[in-house]
């Protein structure tokens, strides 16, 4: 079966809601992950910074510990970046699956 431009265009336009739904699911998952992680870590860090200040640690120890707190919070942000990339990857692959399905259906054989 020859690929008709009109057929492909119509099929791809029809797939837009499906693609938007895939994007919504991925964005929702990402928002869930971030809301699960970030507020808890901010609260923990605030509690710990106050505790370090009150604990009577030697000055050099307290200074080093505060610096480590900052670095480990950066680690959380790096982790969230990796989680974001994971969600972006899932979204791109979901969209590619939709394109693949539409093209293959329009062609009548598995090109992609």
């Amino acid at each position, binding site marked *: 079966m020859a690929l008709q431009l009109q057929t492909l265009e119509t099929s791809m336009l029809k797939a837009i809601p499906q693609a938007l739904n895939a994007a919504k699911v991925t964005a929702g998952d990402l928002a869930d992950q971030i809301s699960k992680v970030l507020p808890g870590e901010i609260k923990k860090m605030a509690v710990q910074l106050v505790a370090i200040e009150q604990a009577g640690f*030697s000055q050099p120890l307290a200074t*080093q*510990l505060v610096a480590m707190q900052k670095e480990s919070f950066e680690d959380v942000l790096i982790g969230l970046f990796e989680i974001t*990339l994971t969600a972006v990857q899932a979204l791109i692959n979901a969209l*590619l699956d939709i394109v693949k399905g539409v093209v293959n259906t329009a062609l009548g054989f598995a090109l992609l």
Partner: protein
Amino acid sequence: MHRFLKTAAILVALGISACSVQLVSPYNADLASSLTKLHEDVLKMASDVARNAANPATKANARVEAYAKTYDDWRARVDTMRILAEVANPGVINCADLMKRLGAGAQSDITAAEGATAEAPQADCQTYLISRLRVRIDQTERLHAAACATNNPNFSNDCLHGFGSARGVVRAGDDSNALLVQPLLRTIRALIWVQDAKKPKTSTSN
């Protein structure tokens, strides 16, 4: 940003021809369980140090020298985790470079001053984070050495309460306990969340 968009466009184009893209390494069950075990072991070690430090008869056992094997074991486990991460690294993202551009995660004063480096060429964010976890272990060991030295005049606050319950602190659950290991625990947690986000979703519908 322009370069990032260009890279994204190339990835999408490559993806269409390959039918899928891989920006991040997949979920790894071994890595996930190693991280959970490490988190548990750090908490156990902190309790053990605090217990030794609390008793004058065992106070000397709280010194870092008594835990040398523990720190070596953790480093060996993290190095193994790094190998697992490197094997699965798709090599698309250079996380250290990206973080520097974003102004976050750059080598800090403390890490730089210690001559340690968490950077790795073309490492994805998971591998980069594991490198930073190793630095966190080294830093914790140095804190331990300073806090629990038997000649530390502030031993009680630094060692006993640093690894146990901090004195004079408004209690806020476990978050304010074992303050000296909390940054290390946070980095481990960050990696646990990454694995959790990558874990394939199992369908709950019948």
